[in-house]
């Protein structure tokens, strides 16, 4: 008994940052509940949220080095429910940084969101923290539900009709995939007798079952994850939600839950004792083709980016398909750099919409001529999404393809080569639609009289940081890679 208590105390101490975070969440709830709604209140919320996020990312960063001194790889807390390791902390840092960027985005562009949003936003982040430190199927489910429910609310929080429609769509598809996932979990539990997929017995017992039974159960289990990742065949909510939701929130949804899912996928797939490659390859190929081919026909920038994230979900999984140490590292690198790219893309789209008041592609005509900085930024961001040098998008793609090649060289599995070629082909397809944005901005002449469109300093500075990162990380990818190597 005493032993158990001391274990819980010990675990609690290691989860202190998350607990403090939860405390701030409660404080915000209290402030929202008891304060009067005023026009200035969002400034207060912005300040609180950003300070807690910056603090916690700093704490995590310190934690990263501190953890190594005491535990060599990772440590199980709360009787195997929570697994704390450096990989998880790294992903928590990624999630926190993207949250900071999103709050800055809200602030810089001047969104006025209700106070409740901040509380739910913090809860969403907390869910992602839990998601990135578990190898327990039950915890995984709880964390995922926490993320999902919070996402449904932030999508629908604006109370407009299209928001509500997107929210409902999101909710329905999300609930379905959760159900599928639960069923998959129950199958896995039935087969292995354990809920912890990081353990040896999970692998052993799973391996004793017929190949396809294990595959089906595993596929159903990752269904909920694929839904969050917006990978095929669980992608259908993406474009509608992306179109209807306020842009900063979409920016957050396009990276943070995906990062959380990728780390769970890394853990789940490396513990899987069955050959799961075929299903993963189908998911990848499906996501790539659905994302890229549908994006070709879009006239709305946010929908276009929505389909683009479906395609990028495929690319993130390519690194996992390689299923070796470097494959995992390249996937992490891809996630980390995709964070910069997607956040900047949504920021760009939002800054453009400030002027045009619409997200239609045709409304962008001539904007790049009126503001050369925006035109250049659009080129850099879009070629980063394509994976074109000299941007970090190229480095990320180069690494995942290298990993895939190496894995093919080792195993001689033709499937990997096919996926490699299809993903390269898809890179070429994606050129068509990504270039549409700079094309309309630069090639087309402005509609009506050309007015100069000037950005104020904070907006320009914020966008410039992203552009700088996209190019700088291309020149110095080792900055990120050495960090990933230590995990």
């Amino acid at each position, binding site marked *: 008994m005493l032993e158990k208590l001391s274990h819980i105390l010990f675990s609690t101490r290691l989860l202190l940052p998350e607990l403090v975070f939860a405390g701030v969440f409660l404080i915000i709830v209290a402030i929202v509940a008891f304060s009067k709604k005023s026009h200035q209140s969002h400034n207060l919320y912005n300040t609180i949220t950003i300070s807690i996020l910056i603090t916690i990312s700093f704490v995590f960063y310190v934690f990263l080095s501190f953890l190594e001194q005491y535990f060599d790889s990772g440590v199980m807390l709360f009787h195997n429910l929570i697994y704390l390791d450096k990989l998880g902390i790294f992903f928590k840092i990624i999630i926190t940084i993207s949250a900071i960027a999103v709050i800055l985005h809200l602030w810089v562009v001047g969104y006025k969101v209700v106070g409740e949003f901040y509380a739910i936003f913090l809860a969403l982040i907390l869910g992602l923290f839990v998601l990135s430190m578990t190898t327990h199927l039950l915890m995984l489910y709880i964390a995922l539900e926490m993320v999902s429910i919070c996402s449904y609310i932030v999508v629908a929080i604006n109370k407009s009709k299209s928001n509500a429609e997107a929210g409902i769509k999101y909710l329905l598809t999300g609930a379905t995939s959760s159900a599928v996932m639960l069923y998959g979990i129950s199958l896995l539990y039935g087969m292995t007798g354990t809920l912890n997929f990081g353990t040896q017995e999970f692998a052993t017992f799973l391996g004793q079952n017929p190949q396809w039974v294990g595959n089906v159960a595993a596929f159903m289990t990752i269904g909920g994850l694929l839904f969050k990742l917006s990978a095929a065949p669980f992608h259908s909510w993406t474009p509608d939600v992306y179109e209807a939701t306020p842009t900063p929130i979409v920016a957050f949804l396009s990276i943070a839950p995906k990062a959380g899912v990728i780390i769970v996928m890394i853990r789940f797939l490396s513990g899987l004792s069955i050959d799961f490659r075929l299903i993963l390859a189908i998911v990848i190929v499906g996501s790539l083709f659905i994302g890229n081919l549908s994006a070709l026909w879009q006239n709305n920038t946010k929908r276009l980016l929505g389909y683009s994230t479906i395609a990028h979900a495929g690319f993130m999984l390519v690194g996992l398909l390689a299923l070796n*140490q470097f494959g*995992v590292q390249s996937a992490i690198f891809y996630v980390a750099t995709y964070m910069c790219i997607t956040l900047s893309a949504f920021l760009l789209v939002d800054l453009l919409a400030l002027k045009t008041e619409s997200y239609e592609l045709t409304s962008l005509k001539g904007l790049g001529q009126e503001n050369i900085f925006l035109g250049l930024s659009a*080129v850099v961001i879009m070629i980063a999404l394509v994976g074109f040098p000299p941007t970090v998008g190229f480095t990320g793609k180069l690494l995942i393809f290298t990993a895939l*090649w*190496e894995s093919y*060289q080792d195993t001689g599995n*033709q499937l990997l*080569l096919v996926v490699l070629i299809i993903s390269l082909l898809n890179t070429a397809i994606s050129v068509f639609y990504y270039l549409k944005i700079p094309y309309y901005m630069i090639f087309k002449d402005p509609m009506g009289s050309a007015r100069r469109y000037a950005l104020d300093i904070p907006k320009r500075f914020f966008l410039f940081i992203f552009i700088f990162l996209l190019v700088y990380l291309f020149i*110095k990818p080792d900055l990120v890679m050495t960090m990933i*190597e230590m995990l």
Partner: protein
Amino acid sequence: MNNILLSTLIFLPVIAAALVLLLPNAYKDSFKWISILVSIINLLNIFTLYNTFDRKLTSFQFLEQYEWIRMGLGSLGTLSIDYILGVDGINMPMVLLSGIIFLAGSVASFTIEHRPKAYHALYLLLTGSVIGCFVALDFFLFFIFFEFMLLPMYFLIGIWGGERREYSAIKFFIYTFVGSIFILIVMIGLTMSVSDTFFSQELNTVVHTFDFRLLADFKNYISGSLLSPDNSQDMFGIPARLFAFILLLIGFGIKLPAVPLHTWLPDAHVEAPTPVSVILAGILLKVGAYGFIRIAYGFFPDIAFEYTHIVAGAGVLSIIYGAFNALAQEDLKKMIAYSSVSHMGFVLLGLSSLTAEGVNGAIYQMFGHGILSAMLFLIAGVIYDRTHNRLIENFRGLSSKMPLYTMAVTIGFFGALGLPSLPGFVGEFFTLMGGFQSKVLPDWVPMLATLGLVLSAGYFLWTLQKMFFGKFWVNRNHEHHMKDLDIREIAMLYGLAALAVIFGIFPNLIFDISGETVKLFLDKF
């Protein structure tokens, strides 16, 4: 030893591009002068390079090497990417050519009135990336420049081009981008198969490298890796090395362009503004040919030796198909574009012969065609500027009103169709001679190629006769627009013509440089 001349060639234009972007629009008249000044400085630097280039050495000269990226790849060892620049007999003529063509192009850009700031910034960026592509000795660096040059080119065609500019620009972009993806696969494969033995021992891990010098040497290949020469693993039923070689042929074949991958070229040429056409024909096509020599043949000599007849076949096909198409064209610029396809075929023929004459001839042909095609596109630009029309049938008897122009056209056309003492002759003669002497090609291959010579005489002379002789007449009453060349045009056309004559009479100016390197290159086969 660690001279920075080559870096200057790349980064001076890039810095100038930034300068142009930062200068306010009030200085818009100065942008073209910045372009010209930078091109002149570059050309002077290249002359220094050319003069101090040691013709006896076979190794790379003016080498610059800096560590760029060292990245751990987990279980795979370390990835090492260096910033390496250098020239040898293969890329030195190309650097010289870029210096000349970019100067001609910047003079030709003088008339650009529409958004000069963006134009000159992109033009300077293009200059830097093309030269970078030629002098880079690290596959990664080469690839970066190779891909990056697409962007300025895309905008230059897409914004300043003709009526169907947007279609041509995206077609150009997609074609070459697909080509570079093929090259990317091979790049990944090669670097994963090669280790830097020296650093591997020092760091006690496998160091994968992109260094051209190491990739070209079989002893650096990791035994059992996919692209190592001793490997027999198949990719889709084709030996892995052959598979990679085919990918390279497609990738560089699109850029070259070799028939049947050439369809982007006529569109791009017709829609591009004159200076961009000049750059495209004069330099960009040579990047493809350079890739063939340095990468496809240089890194895969075993496969290249066995399958060189495929390359020869593509070459001959390009020669004849291009020539027949040129014969059928009514648009002067399109005719010249197809003649480019035809003449670049000789480069492939010469290279595939694997003889000293052939390969030297191919390098010479790249250089000579660069100068002549630049001239030809400037010629087409002259009448387009005056009448906004390029149809051959719209002009007659121009010689009586425009004697200086006619003289330049005559030099250009005769140079291209292969009159002795002009570059076209030297290049075609040596590549054909290589073809006949070759032990790997049957005799009928160069024989077929000579048909291309006859055809090119046909289309050039025909055009000359139709447009320049007879009674003076221009369609749609444009007669009064047909003034003879102004000073700027004289400088461009006669400058290039003088170079054509000099290099045509003294082909040794190029052969001296390439000779030793080619000898070493051929030792591998």
